[in-house]
């Protein structure tokens, strides 16, 4: 009997502990994920609340109102059409077509559905006021965004993301084609609602060489002094690896190979390291990871995720094959190199304010992860600097800029085996060692041709504009 009592006590304690644990996990997960769970198109409570609540205003970082309501049930957007189109994926829409936009992502804040206590509700009922939501201030600058959009060639598709790599703030995010939040009745093609900066996975092409380079520096001792031979193409197991335009680079160092974007050298580096090594390095830079950011809905990038055969590995060495990355993630990778290996969590929400303007909360910079060592990033940044000074990315340089070093990497990613189709033009880079303007950027223009001639000059102009605005 004594033993039975003791064992009942033990079992009772276990179940009690489990119940307490359930409550703990419950409160922690609702606290951490609650708003993310709620701010979704499937949540019918949002549509219901919009009928009864005066929605808050969405401001850009310069306090320009982007979306505002003067009456319950109505929503207006900034009147400048070009700016509005450039911001469509930042603002979002009332119908919930854009999953990434602020209108949905911060809906519970704009509607004041979060942290309203029973006392608040009662007071409102007594005063007879319409419930009022909170105002939000975004990190994005409308003027910069409008300018970046104007840089894209007429009718082009693509995306651009500019971030502050020290704080993770998204300064500009453009996706083309766009939709007009003020006129949701007009026809747009299906993919216009997707934010190409965060929801499209592009083959990175040569911009991925940043990752391959970083892996090689870690895994192959003495790789800096090595000489590589490039004959313009490499015949491996039936498939041919070519350098862009069939150029034969001859005998080159790693630095030259990176600056001139030699596919043959980087394919052979990947082959020497092996799939496991390259995949591990890519994962350090947050490939194959589900992102669960508070502010940004971002799809996972992938590298050697499904297959890691030798053919796949060699393609991955220069960012082809099944390697895929979102433009914002690419900007974060550049940002991590610029920030001594530390990747910051991307942020879109700067402040939450009461309708009266009273500040309620200001979000803080958050480190997302430490990718690689500080020493390693110096080496990579140096090579990226060389690419801008003497390599494929010379057109990314900004005349008269002396506050730091412009580092970058171009890419011309093949999207089909058809020789006549144009490559996607990529550029990613950052302003290195510039305390006042710690910007990282990624640009992709679909079928824009070569990264060096299409994307790099766009990045130069966009960064120049950001510097001029003094963000």
């Amino acid at each position, binding site marked *: 009997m004594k033993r039975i009592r003791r*064992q*009942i006590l033990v079992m009772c304690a276990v*179940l009690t502990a489990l119940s307490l644990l359930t409550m703990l996990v419950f409160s922690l997960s609702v606290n951490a994920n609650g708003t993310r769970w709620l701010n979704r198109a499937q949540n019918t409570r949002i549509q219901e609340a919009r009928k009864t609540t005066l929605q808050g205003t969405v401001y850009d970082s310069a306090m320009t109102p982007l979306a505002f309501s003067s009456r319950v049930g109505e929503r207006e957007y900034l009147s400048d059409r070009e700016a509005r189109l450039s911001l469509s994926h930042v603002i979002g829409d009332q119908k919930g077509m854009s999953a990434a936009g602020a209108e949905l992502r911060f809906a519970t804040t704009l509607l004041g559905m979060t942290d309203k206590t029973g006392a608040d509700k009662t007071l409102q009922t007594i005063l007879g006021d319409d419930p009022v939501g909170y105002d939000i201030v975004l990190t994005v600058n409308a003027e910069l965004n409008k300018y970046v959009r104007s840089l894209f060639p007429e009718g082009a598709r693509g995306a651009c993301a500019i971030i502050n790599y020290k704080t993770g703030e998204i300064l500009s995010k453009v996706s083309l084609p766009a939709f007009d939040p003020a006129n949701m009745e007009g026809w747009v093609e299906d993919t216009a609602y997707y934010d190409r900066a965060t929801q499209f996975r592009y083959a990175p092409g040569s911009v991925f060489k940043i990752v391959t380079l970083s892996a090689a520096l870690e895994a192959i001792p003495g790789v800096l002094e090595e000489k590589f031979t490039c004959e313009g193409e490499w015949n491996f197991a039936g498939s041919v690896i070519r350098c862009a335009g069939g150029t034969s680079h001859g005998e080159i160092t790693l630095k030259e190979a990176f600056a001139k974007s030699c596919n043959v050298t980087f394919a052979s580096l990947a082959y020497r390291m092996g799939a496991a090594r390259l995949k591990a390095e890519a994962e350090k830079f947050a490939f194959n990871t*589900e992102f669960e950011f508070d502010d940004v809905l971002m799809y996972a990038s992938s590298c050697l995720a499904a297959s890691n055969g030798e053919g796949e590995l060699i393609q991955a060495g220069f960012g082809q094959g099944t390697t895929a990355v979102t433009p914002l993630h690419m900007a974060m990778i550049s940002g991590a190199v610029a920030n001594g290996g530390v990747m910051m969590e991307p942020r879109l929400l700067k402040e939450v304010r009461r309708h009266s303007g009273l500040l309620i909360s200001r979000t803080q910079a958050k480190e997302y992860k430490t990718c690689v060592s500080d020493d390693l990033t110096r080496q990579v940044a140096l090579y990226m600097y060389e690419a801008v000074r003497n390599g494929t990315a010379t057109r990314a340089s900004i005349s008269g800029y002396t506050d730091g070093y412009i580092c970058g990497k171009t890419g011309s990613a093949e999207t089909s085996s058809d020789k006549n189709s144009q490559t996607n033009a990529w550029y990613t880079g950052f302003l290195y060692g510039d305390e006042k303007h710690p910007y990282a950027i990624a640009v992709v223009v679909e079928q824009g041709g070569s990264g060096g001639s299409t994307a790099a000059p766009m990045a130069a102009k966009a960064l120049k504009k950001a510097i001029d605005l003094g963000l």
Partner: protein
Amino acid sequence: MKMGLFSRKNDKKAIEAYRKLISRAYETPLLVLIMVFQFLSMGLMAFKDGDFDLSSLLIAVALPLGTWALTYGISKLIHADRGLIMLTAFLAGLGVITLRAALSSPAKAFSQAGYLPLGCAFMLLGALTIHYIRVNGVLVWLLMAICAALMVMPFAFTTVSSAKSWIRLAGYQMQPSEFVKPALVVILAYGFTRGSRINDWFVYAVYSAVLCVILLVQRDLGAVLLYFMLTTAMFTVGTGRWKLALAALVLAVAVGAVFVSFADRIPGFSYLAARIEIWRDPWNSQREDSRQIVQGLMSISSGGLFGAGLGLSAARKVAVVASDYIFAAVCEEFGIVFAFAVICVYVLILLRGCGAAMSARGRFFALAAFGGVFELTSQMLLIVMGNLHIVPLTGVTLPFVSEGGSSLCGSMLLMGLVLGVSALNAKDEYDDLNTLESRGGRLKL
């Protein structure tokens, strides 16, 4: 000479019994609180949306009266633990209130309210059975035969959702596994207290395993899990062979893991792989079938700390909110603080039930009471953790609260067993006190 009779041991028992008497002083306020809660919330629902709803008002009056009658009625018949009765009445009432508030039509709340008297009858049945009938081998064998017959009956009937474990007759349907649960507690309490040698308990363990296999074939995995956990726990406590129980647990986890990983190749179980997949990633997958868990989590988090307000939630958007997801509705209607309190009520039932088990005179009674509360608590944990996305969702009910007559009556029967044991304890203590007094002792405090 008096001093010799008045041993320290008896003194302690008398004081304990007296403390129990004193603890009754807290019962009246608790009862009043529960009754007021039931009256106010159902009364509020009667005037919802501006339409007067007579039947809600009737329930608003009937619920508190029923709670009062149940609490004093059962304890008049036998000295059952009033705290347990009141907490059970609270949960059963909460079920009706939540169904009325969260669903757009009041029909389910009314039919659930109609099941309540039946549930109380089952509770009484359980309590009186334990209190008055001496369980012996013949009785247990008879029970085992009846249960086995009940369990195989659903094979003759059609399927409800993915689990094939219902009996349908003349428009009514019933889930035998809910009624077999309390019977199994009695069977195992008898079987596992006969001794710790293998031939004492082997037959009963095998019987339990056979029931699990039947449930598995009926594809009621939630019930398999509950039956298995119940058997393992009761085996550990009853025979004291915890190493063996641990080995069985490890083996079951291993077999379960293999089973789940090959589920898509076993005919009839392909849905299992999908369930696990949904659990792993309910948000990013484009799948239509993760809707339930997505809506459930939205519902849970949208209530905030203090709830959306009675009748103001959108919990009806969640599929099967009336049974599997009733906890989400409680969260959204009443808020997280209240939902925590509900979990705490189950913990209180557990503690009080284990208290009754530990002061029982006789291994059978101890194990029966323990088995009863263990089953109720583990079922609560399984479905609450499933709703909260901590473990994959299984289709078991939240005891007392979820919609459904079978589930309510089965849970009430289990609670009846615990109450019966608590009444026996009170009787024994009362006898002790009488003996003490007739020997001339007096209570000192």
